[in-house]
């Protein structure tokens, strides 16, 4: 039996806690039998290579439900498309550069709304569920609801080109050409923080889902990590030599993939701040995304390449796909699905990537099959459990722990006494001040200002009386202390001028 402390009661308590933890681990292990779904990857036989499999051949082999999920949307007029999936992967929000925005249930093909904004659309983002979404337009960021009605115009977010949403903090973040990173609390409607990056227009922005730190890519090849509570970046990483084109962070917050304009694709360990691996892309990558299971999709030119290099170095990609005569704008993996959505200059296409999605979902957390009632419940619950923006740190485990600067042992009264030798004079000098209301309110200030210039009889009289009173008080005070009233040495000489 481990002995933690000499204090028997504390020891018993700690032992009990230990036992609880042990039980919890065992019980968690037992619940693994509930995870019946298993992720599977493409497997090649003999001479075959997984990256040679085309989508058509995959569609032939997979079940009908999965095959239905592969689709193409031909939207050639409204320019390159960016897209975003809701947190549970049910809904898809697309935004064409030339002002076409649409939100729909992509599996059922049920359209929620379709907007033509007649304005440049830079980025689209769902908020905590599919009911609201934000669109970064030409000048401002707007919030629309599911029906496409404009709810808010966020005039603080000027010239934003990038949007992201922190679901546990209810923070909408935006960055763009101004070089400012802004955090906007969508539950209270307040702008929580705005940080000046001082690094020019932001090239790309993604969140770290593990600790809600924002990663911003800049033109000088740096990636900066931000939290709303610090006006300076938490960390700076020199990821590439050219501008950072795209970046993505793994779900467990361990890996970051950065694609640069210098055609490098680098894998960073952002807990230890170490570069793990480095690859070259044939041309600049436009977009990078990491799936739940750690597959990395890279969009470059008309190509999409899916890699499985988070665990080990790879010589060949996992999958390849090409959309001829187009430029890939955005790729996003669908949560809980083996699907990769790609927005490109000719529309939207969804690509089957076996093994990409998390097969077992936690319905208490994010439920892909939720009903309207459940969605409302979740919304309320998540609002109740909302985290404060101050709680965002590089290491979220420090919340609730003991300050590292504090002594590692609890100080007894004796220790404290030794630490601060009490000085008898100090306590007496400390005076208790009565709580007086401040006299410098704006109204008073204004009044005072008004009064200052006016010189009338009454004011003069009062002034004189006050002066006299002051003098008398001083004399009285001096008398009580036994100080002789000071004789003015010059009185004799200058008295005549009085």
């Amino acid at each position, binding site marked *: 039996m481990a002995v933690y402390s000499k204090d028997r009661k504390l020891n018993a308590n700690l032992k009990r806690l230990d036992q609880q933890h042990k039980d*919890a681990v065992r019980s968690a292990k037992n619940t693994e039998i509930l995870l019946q779904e298993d992720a599977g990857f493409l497997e090649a036989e003999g001479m075959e290579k997984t990256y040679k499999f085309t989508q058509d051949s995959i569609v032939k082999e997979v079940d009908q439900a999965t095959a239905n999920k592969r689709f193409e949307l031909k939207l050639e007029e409204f320019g390159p498309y960016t897209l975003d999936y809701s947190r549970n992967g049910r809904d898809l929000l697309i935004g064409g550069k030339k002002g076409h925005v649409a939100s729909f249930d992509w599996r059922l093909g049920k359209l929620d709304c379709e907007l033509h904004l007649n304005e440049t659309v830079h980025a689209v983002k769902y908020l905590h569920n599919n009911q609201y979404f934000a669109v970064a337009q030409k000048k401002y960021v707007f919030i629309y609801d599911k029906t496409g009605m404009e709810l808010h115009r966020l005039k603080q977010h000027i010239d934003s080109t990038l949007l992201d949403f922190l679901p546990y903090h209810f923070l909408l973040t935006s960055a763009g050409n101004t070089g400012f990173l802004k955090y906007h609390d969508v539950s209270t409607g307040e702008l929580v923080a705005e940080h000046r990056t001082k690094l020019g227009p932001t090239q790309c922005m993604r969140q770290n889902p593990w600790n809600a730190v924002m990663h911003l890519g800049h033109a000088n090849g740096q990636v900066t990590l931000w939290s709303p509570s610090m006006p300076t970046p938490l960390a700076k990483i020199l990821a590439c030599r050219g501008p950072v084109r795209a970046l993505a962070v793994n779900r467990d917050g361990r890996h970051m993939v950065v694609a640069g304009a210098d055609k490098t694709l680098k894998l960073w360990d952002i807990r230890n701040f170490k570069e793990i691996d480095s690859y070259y892309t044939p041309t600049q990558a436009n977009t990078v995304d990491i799936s739940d299971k750690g597959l990395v999709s890279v969009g470059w030119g008309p190509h999409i390449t899916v890699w499985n290099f988070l665990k080990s170095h790879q010589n060949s990609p996992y999958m390849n796909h090409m959309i001829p005569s187009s430029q890939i704008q955005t790729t996003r993996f669908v949560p809980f699905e083996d699907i990769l959505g790609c927005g490109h200059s000719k529309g939207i296409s969804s690509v089957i990537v076996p093994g990409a999605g998390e097969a077992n979902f936690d319905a208490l957390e994010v439920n892909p099959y939720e009903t309207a009632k459940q969605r409302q419940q979740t919304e309320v619950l998540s609002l109740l459990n909302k985290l404060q923006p101050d709680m965002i740190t590089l290491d979220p485990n420090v919340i609730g722990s003991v300050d590292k600067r504090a002594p590692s*042992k609890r100080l007894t009264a004796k220790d404290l006494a030794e630490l601060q030798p009490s000085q008898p004079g100090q306590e007496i000098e400390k005076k208790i001040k009565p709580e007086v209301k401040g006299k410098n309110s704006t109204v008073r200030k204004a009044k005072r200002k008004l009064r200052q210039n006016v010189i009338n009889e009454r004011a003069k009289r009062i002034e004189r009386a006050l002066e006299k009173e002051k003098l008398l008080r001083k004399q009285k005070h001096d008398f009580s202390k036994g100080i002789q009233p000071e004789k003015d040495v010059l009185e004799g000489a200058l008295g005549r001028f009085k």
Partner: protein
Amino acid sequence: MAKKGGKAKNRALNALEIAEAEQNSSSDIGSESEGENQKFKLGVLTVDGKDFEDEELDSDGALDSDDDYDVLNSKFSQTIRDKGETDTGYDSIDESELIPLSEVWARDDEEMKRSGGKELVLDDNLVSDESSSEESEESEDEDVFDDLEDEENDLSTVMSQLRSRDSSKAHRTLINDKTEENAFRVPATGKKLSLAEMMGDIETDKPLLLNETSAPEPLAVPLPQSIQKRHERRAAYEIQKEEVDKWTDSIQANRRAEVLKFPAKDGVQHNQTSSFQPAEVPLTSLDKKLDGLLKQSNIESKKAEDLFENIETAKLSKEEMAKRTRELRLMRELMYRGQKDAKRLKKIKSKTYRQKLRKEKQRNKELVEGSDAEDEDADYKRAAERMSLKHKNTSEWAKSMIKSGMSKDKESRDELEEMLRQGEKLRQKQLGYDEGESETDERDVAEIAAEQEDDDIERSKLGKGLMAMDFMKRAEERERIENQRLAAELQYGDESDEEQVANVVKNAGRRVYTPGAAAAAEQWKIVEQKAKKEAVEDQEKSLENKIKAKNTPKETKAPEEVNPWLADAEPTRGQKVRVVDADSSRVQKSAAKIKKRTHKEAEMDVEITIGDTLDGEHEGEGDGEQDIHVFQQKDLIKQAFAGDDVVTEFEQEKHEVEELEGDKEVDLTLPGWGDWAGGNSRKKKKIVKTVNGVVPSDKRKDRNKKGVIVNERVNKKNAKYQASSVPYPFETMEQYERSLRQPIGQEWTSREIHQKLTMPKVIAKHGSVIAPMKKE
């Protein structure tokens, strides 16, 4: 008020019942008009076995006004509760402990039972219910001595009455004493006291009271009242404490319990596994059948087996038994010795002994296996071992030998020569000869090549069927050319000294362009040169020559122009390209193998250059033009971003941050202070003060990390979510953080654990009666 009324009613009812009961039980006792009420006024309770409960209820009412009501009340209510559970509950309450006086009475009671079976005890002021009503009217303020006299008469009558009562009934009497204690109060035993009896106990002849010799001493001054009371309090405290201490165990158990459930669970009793044990006697017909079968097959009974064994041993004669035991003992002894031996051998640490042992083992093995059964892997292992150790005279031992001139000594020279011989043997093996071959002929490489050629030609002549086919022929041809080339290379040395960017030498197949190819070629060359040099070295006859050859300086080559992109990128993989395939020679194979194993980093047999890792499409075809194109583009990029030197900028920034956040040294030396006029060159003492910064530069998190700046400043807004010191019950930070380890939310744990962790401390079932705590 309503309650009281109820009680009174109850009392009346009880009185009626008891009156009836008593009338039935004893005819002697006259009917009493006052009934129970009077009884309570007198303060005597008769506890009868039959109508116990009723009596108790009444006692509550009766004792309303009493001083020690509380004690009694609680005690009695306890007995009522306990009664349901245990029959002895009432007795176990131990009135004696709480009321010392009643204890006395009880003791007297028992005495009486022993002597005459009298059940009732009367006090001087108290009269039983059986006594006549006139006594109750007697005033209490009468003289006590008068009372005593009266009482004797009264007692005698009462006794007689009582004796006539049914003695089989157990009566217990509690007498509640209301009178004050005084010196003259005598416990009434119910027996007449004679003076003789009283004096009988006095043993001494001398009259006790009269002491003629000494003057009458004054009585000791009684203690002051306050002190007396204190003593009393102390005594009372002791008693009380003893009583209270009995609860500590149960209190502690309750405190320790994670959850207290009320009412305590003692409902369903589940079957224990032991309750399913088979019955001793077969019950059903099936059982009987089974039993019979088991008996027949003799499986069932262990006794029978024992018996059988007994018979077996009994069959043996005495001598035979002795012999057997002897044998067994011998075996055991041998085994023991063997073990001991092995242990001893294991303990020996001598190197030479081990070497001898190993050699012997190997010899034995060879004898068993034969030298021809050679596995490639085993071959490799042996080769590697020898290469590293024995065949070279570069080992510590050899060097020291040479240095100290011990090589002139015959023995050591022999040793050295042995080493070299071994090395040679090994090298030959490495070069692809069989052992026997190498011993017999010292042929030239050219000869071998010629022979091989002949062989090839012969084979080609022989070829029919598959071997005669075109592609096989082509492959054969290629192989032949390759072999020839290799032989030539070994013979004349590597003549192709020109720079080879593409690594085309080792692989007749495709060409691989890599930035690292040149380097790889370089490395390969070095390896070959080394091998050659060693071969030359070995051909030197004398030891000195060998040493000389060894010490000649190696040619160094100027480092090749490197790509700054790649030089900066640290974890570059696949720099060394070596393609080992079926048609590479054994030399290459083994060299590659050794190389592979010695180098820790995981190198692949086939590695692809960095340039084309990402575009899988080029991989299969490997067309050179595209690769070249990519290479050129990389150069272009290098040029494109050459202007803004982000790396140095970043480093500079990092340096600045380090300076800013690090500790600072402030020179507080005043100019001219302690400095006399004139240029005295004596060094002055500098006064330097360090100002603590955020973090010293040697403790930064990004200290050894290139291209990373970590902000070390304290985030004050986070500080409010942290404990400023270790919170109370915990002593260290580790303990506290350990306690935080287990989250209780249902998102993080299983349902079972979540419910367990969030269970309230006390669970009480609604509407159920919660029994009070029991003392242990």
